[in-house]
């Protein structure tokens, strides 16, 4: 299985990255090399092996739903590149 520049363009779109034609070419080559190396995993029969998503044996960590102090609006907006009236500002979403 090898990937093409077209695949790279599709993945970049999914990842919200704008790549230059040079980056597209380099990533196509490098991702092919890495994925080809990853084919190694297919040497192993894993049909009856359970996947490990996490090493700790914990699930559904719950806590009481109690009111606590949280960030102020000013703090939450401290690093916002643009804000207005106490909100994060974004360009128009609907044209």
């Amino acid at each position: 299985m090898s990937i093409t520049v077209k695949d790279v363009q599709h993945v970049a779109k999914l990842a919200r990255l704008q790549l230059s034609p040079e980056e597209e070419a380099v990533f196509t080559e490098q991702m092919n090399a890495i994925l080809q190396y990853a084919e190694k995993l297919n040497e192993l029969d894993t049909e009856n092996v359970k996947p490990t998503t996490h090493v700790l044996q914990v699930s559904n960590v719950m806590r009481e739903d109690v009111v606590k102090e949280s960030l102020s609006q000013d703090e939450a907006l401290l690093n916002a590149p643009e804000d207005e009236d106490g909100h994060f500002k974004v360009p128009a979403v609907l044209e």
Partner: protein
Amino acid sequence: MLSLFQYRLPELHNMLQSKEISVSELTEQSLAAIADRDSKVHAFLTLNEEGARQSARALDDKLASGAARGLLFGLPAGIKDNIVTKGLRTTCASKFLDNFQPIYDATVVSKLRQADAVTVGKLNMDEFAMGGSNENSAYGAVRNPWNLEHVPGGSSGGSAAAVAAGEVLFALGSDTGGSIRQPASYCGVVGLKPTYGLVSRYGLVAFASSLDQIGPVTRNVEDSAYVLQAIAGYDAQDSTSAKVDIPDYLSALTGDVSGLRIAVPKEYIGEGVDPSVREQVMSALKVLESLGAVWEEVSLPHTEYAVAAYYLLASSEASSNLARFDGVRYGVRVDEGGGLLDLYHNSRSRGFGPEVKRRIMLGTYALSSGYYDAYYLKAQKVRTLIKQDFDEVFKNYDVVIGPTAPTTAFKLGSQTENPLTMYLNDILTIPVNLAGIPAVSIPCGFAGGLPVGLQIIGKEFDESTVLRVAHAFEQHTDFHKERPQL
């Protein structure tokens, strides 16, 4: 002036308590060391000079008033720049976060403050902790204090170099696939990756959440135990934090390893490992043998699959974690008037460096429709096999020992062409993260004037045994006392 940095942390703790030295004196020594040599090493991204002096004065006042003192009282520390510090710039060595001012402290940072440590600054790293040489920092690479033409390792290269260069007494790093241990090995210091879940990840900017773990970088094993004591423990803010009892790590350092059973995986000393590295590791085993430990060769048969599984899993998790960098809430924003989608595309493309983009691309591909089973799920299953390899060996042995890295620190610029070659440097550290178990890298010799690291791997939550073995070795060798000439 005799350097105060020759003492171990518990010794300095006592000297400070008895007012033999002051916190301000010790802090000034750290700041002076940074001023003297960090232009060569480039370990620091942001200095907290004024903040450190203020804390030092406050701590000296606290001592004078007779109030209770914390475990790390007065000790100057550096913090890897992917651990958030309230009000102190935190960049992850990425242009994306060039001006980022955290609005809260990571749990480990709160713990350092509660323990009365002094934060002198934030340490350089590979961008978003992705890399093994520090050459992926957007602010320029860290240099290896032992040879400035060589890399310090990564991604916690700033943490290891700052400790090796005597700029701080200890540092915090993070380890996802070897990012504490490998630079510790390259820089001749002690780097500990605790069991997954032992130290809270709250406030650690996530790279691969199922693998990331914070740990100490120090000049000797006793200091490592000392710092671990201050940062370990359950944290309700981290849902993957483990509810386990925290032992007294210092009291585990008995020096006794008689009857200890050591497993040496043949995959860790075979082909691909530099002969000079192997030689130092074999001599280290002889030292432990002379102290009454026994070692035998074993096999961890799935080792050769670890790198492939790791890069699929870590990149997949990274592609998801780094989706939050959107140019809206913090960091770089490039708005060229093309609407929201363009804002995302432009901000991310301008803010991230090449290695970060490469991993986001790889992860997005591995998680995308049609490829999930072939790559991500397959890698998770192989992760199970790698964990089972360790489970099997730990039925009969107390620790697993081998080199930390297959070579000593390589030259800057020598491996940047091919990312896959760079990834393969991590073959001996990655399996430990996949299995979630603890491991330490300690100095065990030199090859060509550069330090060699010995890796000691333990059972989950058995940091005590890992540190005991490391300490026993250290008691009978002088490698940890060697200092680079800068």
